[in-house]
C-alpha cells in the first residue's frame, strides 16, 4: 500500500488505497449533495450543497485536521501520540490564562501557548527518545497529565472568555471569502506534506518505522528525528488549541477531548500503517475529509449523531479490510498449463 512506490501504470494507481479513498470521498460528497440539499419555502437552497455548509464543514475540521496531519509522520515512524488532544487543551488554557489573568497581548499569549505546546511535545520527545520508552505508554501518561494540568489550572470550573473580536475572527469569520482558519491549515498541510514526501526527513521517518535498528545502523540520527516529530506535534496541537478557542470564543479545560482518537482514525483510514513505514499525508487528508463529510453530512441531513459515529467505525473497518484485499489477490497462485507426460507416482502414507 505504499504510495511512494512508482506508479507502474494506471492500474496500480487506480487500485492504490489513496485513490479508492478519494473515490469514497467523492461518492460521499455526491451522496450528501443529493440527500441533504433542499429548497426552503422562500426558494433558497439550504443544506449540504451551499457554500456556507461547505465552509462550516471546513471550519469544524481544521483543528482535527491539524492533529491528523502532524500525527502522520509520528505514526510513520512506528510511534503514536495519544496526548495531542490534551496538549490542545492545556495550550488553550494557558493562552486564556495569559491573556485574561496576566494581561498579555493576544500575539504574546499565542506565543506562550505555542511554547507550552513545544514543551509538552518536548517532554514526550525526551521520554521517548532519551529514555527509549514506548510511545504508546508515554503519551498515555502525558494524555492524562496534560489534561489534568489543564483542569488543575482552571480548578475544573474556570473558563476564559471575552476575547476581542479581532481574535474571534480567526475562528468564526471569513477572510477573502474563505474561513479565516483555512489558510493556516493549508500552510501546515503543505509544510507537513513537503516534510514527509519531499525532504530526506520524510524518507527517514519511513525507514525508522520499518526498522529502527536498521535505520540506526545506516547512520540515521534516529533520536533527533523522533524528537523533532514529537515536538512538532506539540506545537501544532497548541496551534490547533488557539484555533479551537477562537472558534468557540472560549478557552476550556476539556478542549479537544477525544480528538486524538479521531486523528488516529483519519491517519489509519488514509492508508498509513499503524506499525509504521507506510503511509502518506494526502492519504491522511482524504481520511479527514471522509470522516468530516460523513459526520457533517449526516447532521445536515437531520440524521443522528449515533448513526454518524457508527458509520465512521464501519468506514474504518472497511478501509482496514480493504487494504488486505490486494495482498490476498496477489497471493493467488498463477494458473499453469501443464500436460503431465507420465503419471506421477502417488505417495503412500
Amino acid at each position, binding site marked *: 500500500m505504499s*504510495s*511512494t512506490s*512508482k*506508479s507502474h501504470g494506471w492500474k496500480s*494507481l487506480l487500485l*492504490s488505497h*489513496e*485513490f479508492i479513498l*478519494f473515490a469514497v470521498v*467523492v461518492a460521499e*460528497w455526491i451522496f450528501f449533495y443529493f440527500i*441533504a440539499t*433542499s*429548497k*426552503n*419555502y422562500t*426558494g*433558497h*437552497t*439550504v*443544506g*449540504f*450543497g*451551499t*457554500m*456556507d*455548509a*461547505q465552509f*462550516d464543514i471546513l*471550519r*469544524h475540521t481544521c483543528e482535527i485536521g491539524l492533529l491528523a496531519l502532524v500525527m502522520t509522520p509520528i505514526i510513520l515512524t512506528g510511534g503514536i501520540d495519544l496526548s495531542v488532544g490534551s496538549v490542545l487543551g492545556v495550550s488553550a488554557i494557558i493562552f486564556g490564562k495569559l491573556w485574561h489573568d496576566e494581561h498579555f497581548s493576544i500575539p504574546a499569549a499565542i506565543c506562550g501557548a505555542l511554547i507550552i505546546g513545544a514543551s509538552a511535545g518536548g517532554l514526550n520527545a525526551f521520554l521517548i527518545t532519551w529514555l527509549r520508552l514506548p510511545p504508546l505508554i508515554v503519551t498515555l501518561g502525558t494524555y492524562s497529565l496534560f489534561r489534568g494540568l489543564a483542569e488543575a489550572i482552571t*480548578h*475544573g*470550573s474556570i*473558563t476564559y*472568555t471575552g476575547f476581542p473580536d479581532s481574535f*474571534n475572527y480567526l475562528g*468564526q469569520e471569513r477572510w477573502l471569502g474563505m474561513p479565516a482558519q483555512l489558510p493556516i491549515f493549508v500552510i501546515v498541510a503543505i509544510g507537513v506534506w513537503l516534510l514527509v*514526501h519531499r525532504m530526506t526527513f520524510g524518507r527517514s521517518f519511513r525507514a525508522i518505522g520499518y526498522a529502527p535498528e536498521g535505520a540506526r545502523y545506516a547512520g540515521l540520527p534516529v533520536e533527533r528525528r523522533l524528537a523533532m516529530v514529537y515536538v512538532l506535534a506539540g506545537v501544532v496541537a497548541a496551534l490547533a488549541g488557539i484555533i*479551537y478557542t477562537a*472558534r*468557540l*470564543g*472560549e478557552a*476550556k*479545560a*476539556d*478542549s479537544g*477531548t477525544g480528538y486524538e482518537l479521531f486523528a488516529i482514525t483519519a491517519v489509519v483510514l488514509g492508508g498509513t500503517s499503524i506499525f509504521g513505514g507506510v503511509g502518506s499525508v*494526502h492519504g491522511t487528508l482524504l481520511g479527514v475529509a471522509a470522516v468530516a463529510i460523513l459526520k*457533517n453530512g449526516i*447532521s*445536515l*441531513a*437531520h*440524521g*443522528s*449523531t*449515533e448513526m454518524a*459515529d457508527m458509520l465512521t467505525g464501519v468506514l474504518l473497518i472497511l478501509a482496514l479490510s480493504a487494504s488486505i484485499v490486494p495482498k490476498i489477490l496477489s497471493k493467488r497462485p498463477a494458473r499453469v498449463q501443464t500436460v503431465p507426460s507420465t503419471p506421477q507416482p502417488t505417495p503412500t502414507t
Partner: protein
Amino acid sequence: MKRILVLLLTAGLVLSGCGKSDTGSSATSTPVAASGKKLTIGLLPKAKGNPYFVSVKNGAQKAADELGDTLIFDGPTNDDAAKQNETVENWINSGVDVIAVAAEDENSLSTPLRKAQAKGIKVVSFDADVLPDARTFFVNQATPQGIGYALMDKAAELCGKEGEFAIITAKLTAANQNEWKKYIDEDLKKNYPKMILVDFRPGDDDKALSQTVATELMSAHPNLKLIMAISSIAVPAAAEAVKQAGKVGKVNVIGLGLPNENKQYVHDGVTNCVILWNTGDLGYLTVQAADALVKGTLKPGDKSFKVGTTTYEISGDNILLGQPYTFEKSNIDKFDF
C-alpha cells in the same frame, strides 16, 4: 504520485464549482401563509442519552405533532460543548426555522446562536440558558432561587437543621448547576448555620462515576447525614450507593431526579424525595414557544404566554414553567416520566 496530485487538484476545482449554488436557480417562491407553515424545530439537549432530556423530548414531540411541525432532536451523546456548536452550525446551514437549546456551556454556545439570529433563525433556550443576547426567550423550569432554596430547605428539614451533607453535581463547568449551587449556599449561610457542606464533587452526568463519588463521600465522611444530587443522573446513582453501603436510614438522599428513575428508591426509603418539574411539560412549552415565536404570536416584551388553557407567566425574558414540585412516597406513583 504526481498523477494523484493532479487528479486531486482537478477534482477539487470541479467540485468547488458544483457547490456554488447559494441562491436557488428556480425561484418558485410560493409563500405559504404563516399559520399554515410547517416549521422545522431543532431541539438541542446537553446530552442525547440523558433520560432527563429524553423525557423533555417526549413532551416536545407531542407539541410538534400537535402543531404539525418537524422536530429534530440531535446533539452530543455526552456533555460536549464543541459538538453542540457544530450541531447548531449545521442546523443553521440546513435551514431550520427555530433552534431550542439547553447549553452545556453558555459562553461558547452563544457564538453560533448569534449567527443563527443574524440569519433570521429564532432562538430559545430551555433548562440551561445561554447569554441573553443570543436568544429571545429562556423557558425556565423554575427560578434558580426557587430550586436552590427548595433543595436546601428540604435537606435541612431531613437533617434536623444540623449535621454534615455533601453535594454531587454534573460537570463543574455546568452553568445552571453552578447557579443553583449559589442559591443553596445562600440559603445555607442565611438560615442553617449548624449545617456543614463537607464537599461538592462532580459526577460528570455519568452514572458509574456518580455512584463511585457517592460511595467515596460516605467512606470519607462517616458522619455524613445527607447526599444532595443536583444532577438527575446522580440521584439514583447516589441512592444505589447508599443502599449498597448499607446506610439506608443513616444517610438520606435527595436531589433533582426523574420520578420514574427514583420510584423504587423512594418506596424503599433510600431516597426521601426528588424535587423536579414536569420535564415533558418543559419540552412541550419550549416547542410551543418556539413555534409561536416564529409565527409572531409570542413577542419580546410579552408578559404572559397562553398555550391551550394554561397561561404561563413571563418574567423579563424568562418564560416560567412554574414552581419546583416535590415527588415523594405519597405522590410519585402518579407520574410517568
